[in-house]
């Protein structure tokens, strides 16, 4: 009888293995980021510079987000453009 009960009891109290696993995954990621600080900041600056060569931009309207998934991560770049930007490109071109 007792193994089932014991397992039930243990699975309820043994949260340390979860802590350990969460830490290992998190720290592996954070250590990888060290030394290349603020990747998102750098990306934001460079994307802003490239787009500004062609379109007048409000720096506040450029949003760069990263979302980490289990197997892949996504980079989301959200740039708000003023409505008259096609005409500006046309005149430049």
């Amino acid at each position, binding site marked *: 009888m007792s193994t089932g009960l014991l397992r039930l009891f*243990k699975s309820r109290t*043994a949260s*340390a293995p979860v*802590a*350990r696993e969460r*830490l290992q995954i*998190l*720290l592996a990621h*954070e*250590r990888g980021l060290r030394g290349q600080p603020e990747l998102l900041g750098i990306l934001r600056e460079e994307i802003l510079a490239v787009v500004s060569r062609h379109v007048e931009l409000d720096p506040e309207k450029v949003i760069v987000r990263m979302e980490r998934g289990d197997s892949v991560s996504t980079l989301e770049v959200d740039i708000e453009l003023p409505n008259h930007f096609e005409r500006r490109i046309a005149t430049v071109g």
Partner: protein
Amino acid sequence: MAKVLVVTSGKGGVGKTTSTAALGAALAQSGQKVVVVDFDVGLRNLDLVMGAERRVVFDLINVVQGVAKLSQALIRDKRLENLWLLPASQTRDKDALTDQGVGVIIADLRARFDWVLCDSPAGIERGATLAMRYADEAVIVTNPEVSSVRDSDRIIGMLDSKTVKAEQGERVVKHILITRYDQARAARGEMLNIDDILEILATPLLGIVPESQDVLRASNVGCPVTLNNAASAPARAYHEAARRLMGETIPMTIPSERVGLMNRLLGRRAA
């Protein structure tokens, strides 16, 4: 050769100040000449834990700015004649500390003491980086809890990159000191155990300080726990840690409370 040792953690409330006072007193009890330096400018507390809060006249900032001489700011412990305290300022803000100013004081302290123990403020800002800046060795105080372990990992990264030693291509010698450890809970899988923490942080262990009422009791009366009740479990853990800092090799134990028969019958824990 003097050794400069920073007691650091990243996270607040894990026991940096308690550990600085306890290790400083333990080293001094072994005959070493020791100064404990409070780097927590604006929120000083090492003076209180050491029981010297009413004797502070000048502080670290005064010395950095040339208002006072180092010898005027150093406070000698009343119980141990080779233990000294250099308090932090309570009123100034942390920007009053400069890299160069701290460098001069640390060099001066190196010439006068065997051990310079720097009690770091929490966080990773200026105060914390300056506390570790000139360190030869570091004690990273860690609780068996996820946020503390994460912050310790961050601090280890800073010790390996932002210290003078690191910039010169050398290494700060790092030690993990686990505090507030509860062996029974770890055995039940409710708390990260020692092996988990050491494996994650990949840094050698200096000591294991068990969770104990004696720590609070010592700070209540303003006495390092190693002096207040030398027979208590945390005091024995800190004494062993201090001996390891001095280069002794002693087996790692988790000191436990000694519960006397009378106390057990009365349902009390031993002092």
